[in-house]
């Protein structure tokens, strides 16, 4: 096929560093300007991100409590020893991966479908786009409350499924069934987040030059071929961006769990971040909660490094 090898996105002209000889003075000036411009951001980062991270790391090796008259003591790796023998922690790791492995491709795929749908020039596109985006602008706390109502055994979701199947569907107690609770939360999370991903896809689609499609049509390429050989390669950079952002968001799953299931039933929805917060605040075990956070950082860092490695190979 003629168009296969084409790189459809006009890559942004990233010109190589200029070879013109520059004086040492100019370079010093450049470095000085850079230092001035980056200092406010770095100072804020150090104050409000690095310091707390270092504190969290340090706390992880102590028995610090949220409420206590006793000063924290250094206890070495005790928190980690306890953590790694805790079946609930391993359940939370499994659930976190389960959530990410399902939600990342589903949300990205559905979003792409939506983007293609609202990218077609059909009347009312603005309306559809707005409706698909509605959940994004609604607060996650509010959204979780609404869905908790709807997931009840005698709630709207079961009612709707019964209507569509002419009562052949047996109502499921979604959030109370260890097998269904996590899928229910996945569905709701995708519902809330997919509009945002759609917009990013849409942007990617809009940058693919129309001439490519026209040329393909002249070659007699069908919808699938056009998608496979023009759209998909054209979305390469968008794909990486979406993969990284959804993965990070998926690993941080917390609010939905906190509002809807508190990790239950039988630990089927507990996640690493939920465990960290539960231990750190509710059970007042600041040190132990910090240890969970630390493990979480290592986990996500590993995943993103692997991801970066994989996408780099493909790209």
């Amino acid at each position, binding site marked *: 096929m003629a168009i296969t090898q084409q790189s459809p996105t006009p890559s*942004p002209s990233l010109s190589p560093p200029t070879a013109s000889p520059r004086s040492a003075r100019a370079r010093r000036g450049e470095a000085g*300007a850079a230092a001035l*411009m980056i200092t406010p951001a770095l100072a804020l980062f150090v*104050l409000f991100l690095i310091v707390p991270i270092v504190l969290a790391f340090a706390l992880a090796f102590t028995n610090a409590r949220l409420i206590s008259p006793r000063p924290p003591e250094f206890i070495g790796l005790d928190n980690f020893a306890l953590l790694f023998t805790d079946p609930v922690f391993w359940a939370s790791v499994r659930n976190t991966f389960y959530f990410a492995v399902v939600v990342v491709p589903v949300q990205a795929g559905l979003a792409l479908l939506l983007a293609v749908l609202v990218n077609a020039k059909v009347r009312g596109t603005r309306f559809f786009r707005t409706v698909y985006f509605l959940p994004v602008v609604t607060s996650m706390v509010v959204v979780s409350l609404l869905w908790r109502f709807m997931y009840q055994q005698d709630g709207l979701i079961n009612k709707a499924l019964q209507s569509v199947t002419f009562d052949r569907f047996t109502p499921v107690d979604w959030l109370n069934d260890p097998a269904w609770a996590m899928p229910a939360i996945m569905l709701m999370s995708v519902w809330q987040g997919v509009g945002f991903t759609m917009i990013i896809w849409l942007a990617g689609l809009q940058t693919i030059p129309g001439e490519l499609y026209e040329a393909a049509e002249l070659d007699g390429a069908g919808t699938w071929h056009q998608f496979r050989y023009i759209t998909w390669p054209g979305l390469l950079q968008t794909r990486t961006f*979406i993969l990284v952002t959804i993965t990070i968001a998926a690993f941080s799953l917390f609010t939905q769990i906190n509002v809807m299931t508190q990790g239950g039933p039988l630990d089927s929805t507990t996640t690493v971040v939920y465990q960290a917060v539960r231990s750190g605040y509710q059970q007042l075990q600041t040190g132990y909660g910090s240890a969970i956070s630390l493990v979480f950082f290592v986990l996500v860092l590993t995943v993103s490094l692997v991801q970066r490695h994989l996408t780099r190979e493909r790209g």
Partner: protein
Amino acid sequence: MSVTSIATPTKRSVVVTVLRSVLVVFFAFPIVFMLVSSLKPDLQIFADLGSWRAFLPVGDVSFANYTGVFDRVPFARFILNSVLISGVTIALGILVNSMAAFALARLRWRGRGLVLGLVLATLIVPFETLALPLLWWVNKLPSFEADGFSLAFKQGWLDTYQVQIIPFIANAFSMYLFYQYFASIPRELDEAARMDGAGWFAIYRTVIMPLSGPAIATVAILTFLPAWNSYLWPLMVVQSEELRPVMIGLQYFFQLNTSWGQVMAYSSLITIPVVALFLAFQRSFINSIASSGVKG
């Protein structure tokens, strides 16, 4: 530039329209449920829960829940606080992050690769895991208190606007978006400006920023959503009612006898401004968010 196919356009557009409409139902129904419930008395919300009536404004419909909301919480004050907090966070965030991104993307200096890598690594830290150490830390920070015209020193940032704003100004995601965008602007522009004797600040200000409208809008939007919906942090750091943002207001309705109608009314009230904003600025919303994806 629609993706055409072998099928006839009419048949295809029918499929598209049907699919889009089904999806509208999927995306809109919880929101409709919220709006409709906000018009009903508590008992009726629960009576209607298992039937299609949940989506219909039928029965004892009134604005009583809304009146109740305004009686119970200082709604205007909460909205004002959230507007102020998100507004200042956005303004300062754009300035600080774009300057840093400019230094990373357009200027050459030793160690910038390392700094960029570190900034990106912080993307993976969810706020929930840092809230406690951060709380402890902001308690140690000095702050100045205006007493008439003299400034008094006090320790701790609790119960202020600044504690809701300043920790959220520097943002790796925003910085990354600016960085990507700046990197895509041809370097020849800088060089030309240099020839004309412009300094780096002037280039940032007169060359790069004016070209970065979409990136600025994207960062503004991405900063706005979490700032407006922020909940855990203000819960921990704000004590005075006059400093509370909108999401804390939701808590006022959860009592021994929770008034679910008022919860729904309040939720609708705090969602509507954001939706209205989206409707009004849909074009720039889309275009701006769009740009962040492609330039990546």
